[in-house]
């Protein structure tokens, strides 16, 4: 027993603490509108501006003090957890999903895997012309459609009457497209890109979510693409091809689940990165509406009141615990995965 307990102390306990803390944050975020808080969030209490924590006294108390605009720190903390659930978590989930799909497709089909008939080009232009309501949309779309039908017919005829075929297809450069847009997005540091794009009017939660999704998907896409290049060469994919399954089905049912395996360990880190980015934005006061509660906004009020330690202690520790817990979770997931890894590296 005395031999076992250090291992328990250093391995099991941090893990359980991490899971417990994350569960607490999720619970606080979900239950925040129903919790009996002494003060509502984002409403200034002008009688108590930058008040230290109070545990006794008349009336409702500011248990964790107030910030320089008189907002209750406890309420801001609890609703800041809600902000994580509403913004960082969905953004990370969506970015991981988009990255997995884009990176997986790019790695599986490459630049020459997706062959389209030339006839699809005028048809696509016709559809775009119709949707964008470019001038003379009925006539132009009809003309383009006729061209595409003629191309199809000529392809059919040439296939029927001559042996020559195969050069009438257009290769869709999927890999270059995905990699190129990922490179373009990572040409500028994330924070600078988000700050620049948020330079317009305040975005609100929806706009910010799209913005975070935009800057976060390339990482997941690169990871899945690299893994997909390995998976694509595996015997089971070859076997599926030999059986005659359609490529889309092989991709979705057989290759993609394997290519997405590293994402399990990556996802918590992605959430942590977006939490950091979101709180940095809130700290800088860019993009968010001033009424939104966020741990970062609370931390950003410190320079106005440099001695108010209670402004840093609560949100700072909450942020630190959350990020460390997510790091721990990622470590545990990746260790778990390595012990049952199927694919050779």
């Amino acid at each position, binding site marked *: 027993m005395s031999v076992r307990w250090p291992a328990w102390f250093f391995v099991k306990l941090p893990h359980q603490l991490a899971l417990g803390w994350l569960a607490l944050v999720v619970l606080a975020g979900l239950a925040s509108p129903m919790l009996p808080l002494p003060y509502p969030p984002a409403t200034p209490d002008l009688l108590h501006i930058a008040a230290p924590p109070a545990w006794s006294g008349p009336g409702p108390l500011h248990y964790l003090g107030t910030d320089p605009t008189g907002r209750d720190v406890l309420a801001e903390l609890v609703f800041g957890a809600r902000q994580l659930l509403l913004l960082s978590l969905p953004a990370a989930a969506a970015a991981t999903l988009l990255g997995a799909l884009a990176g997986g497709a790019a790695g599986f089909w490459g630049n020459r895997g997706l062959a389209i008939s030339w006839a699809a080009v005028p048809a696509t232009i016709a559809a775009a012309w119709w949707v*964008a*309501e*470019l*001038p003379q949309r009925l006539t132009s779309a009809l003309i383009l459609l006729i061209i595409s039908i003629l191309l199809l017919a000529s392809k059919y005829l040439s296939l029927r009457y001559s042996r020559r075929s195969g050069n009438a297809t257009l290769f869709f450069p999927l890999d270059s497209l995905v990699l190129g847009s990922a*490179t*373009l*997005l990572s*040409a*500028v*540091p*994330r*924070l*600078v*890109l988000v*700050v*620049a*794009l*948020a*330079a*317009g*009017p305040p975005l609100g939660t929806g706009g910010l979510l799209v913005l975070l999704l935009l800057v976060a998907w390339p990482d997941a896409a690169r990871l899945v693409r690299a893994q997909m290049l390995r998976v694509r060469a595996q015997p089971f994919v070859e076997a599926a091809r030999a059986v005659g399954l359609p490529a889309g089905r092989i991709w979705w049912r057989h290759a993609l689940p394997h290519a997405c395996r590293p994402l399990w360990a990556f996802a918590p880190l992605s959430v*942590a990165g977006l939490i*950091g*980015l979101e*709180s*940095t934005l809130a*700290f*800088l*006061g*860019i993009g968010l509406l001033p009424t939104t509660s966020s741990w*970062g906004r609370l*931390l*950003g009020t*410190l*320079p106005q009141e*440099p*001695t108010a*330690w209670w402004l*840093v202690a609560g949100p*700072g520790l909450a*942020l*630190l615990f959350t*990020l*460390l817990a*997510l*790091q721990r979770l990622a470590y545990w997931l990746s260790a778990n995965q390595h012990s049952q890894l199927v694919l050779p590296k």
Partner: protein
Amino acid sequence: MSFWWVFARLGRALLAAWGIASAIFLTVHLLPAAPDEFTLGDPSELGSAVSLRTSASRQAARQALRHRLGLDEPVFYLTRTAGRPVRWQWHGRHNQYHHWLSLLLRGNLGYSYRTGQPVAALLGPALAYSIPLMVLAAALATGLAIWLALGLANASGALTGWQAVARTLLTGIQALPLFSLSLALLLLLANPDLLNLLPADGMSTDYPPLGGVAWLASYGAHLVLPLLSLVLAVLPELTLPLEATLRQELRADYASTARSKGLTSWQVAYRHALPNALLPLLTSFTGLLPTMVAGTVVVEVLFALPGTGRLLAEAAATHDYPLVIASVLLTSIARMLALLLADVLYFWTDPRLRPSL
């Protein structure tokens, strides 16, 4: 041959910088709310200075401002009307994007909406402040990272003592966003209640004249906290990979040979393993630039330093689009050049990696 390779990479880098800057230009300008509404601000504020009481005169003032900023022109070559019936219009060369691009090609970054000054005149002094800060932080962080990684890699088996503490701290710092780190430093070292060791207000007004010992001391004292924050921010991402590589190298046969010659473990690590482990560090080194640039935004805002980061954050907060776009353009060019430089350095130091062209 090699020249053409570098040339092609350079072209692609410029293309990427143009692409991202154009994308941001169009996104920001096509957003529903125009910047003149922010610039004009609340009509009641201006009401006393200029008689903008009536809505007609306010409209006229807005029109004049839009004309002065060039915002009354269409955004792009081709625009689509918002309402029904939908009509597409070709504007030729009289559009904001064309003006911006032609100014840019002549080396003019445009004029700030807020002050009317040329953007280059605003960016110049800020860059002169930020670049020394970043270079100093990068140099300090690299030196410290090499020293720390050597110390950590030399510990065989389980880490004990200062090494365990350093390792835990590094992993903790890696998890934290930079601004909370700087805030913690600010609260610890520049707190009137606790330890009021260092000034936190950046460039204060009672600043000694340029040159001389007093100036240098004051300048140094003001730089300690920002510099410390930046160094701590990049230290983990430099140290931890280097330590992993060093450990791997120390397990190689040549390290055993060096040990059997009777060298101390420090000599083996420093003389024999380090040169081999430094090559992968080049990758981390190119990753340093984005972290540094993002770090200066946070640090300069927090410590009120007159650098590019604060300029960008303020420009974003005041919707000063030309300044924002110029900062993005400069940053992306710097990033692309850094990536190119890293590749060239790789090929120069390790001939096995050279492209076969």
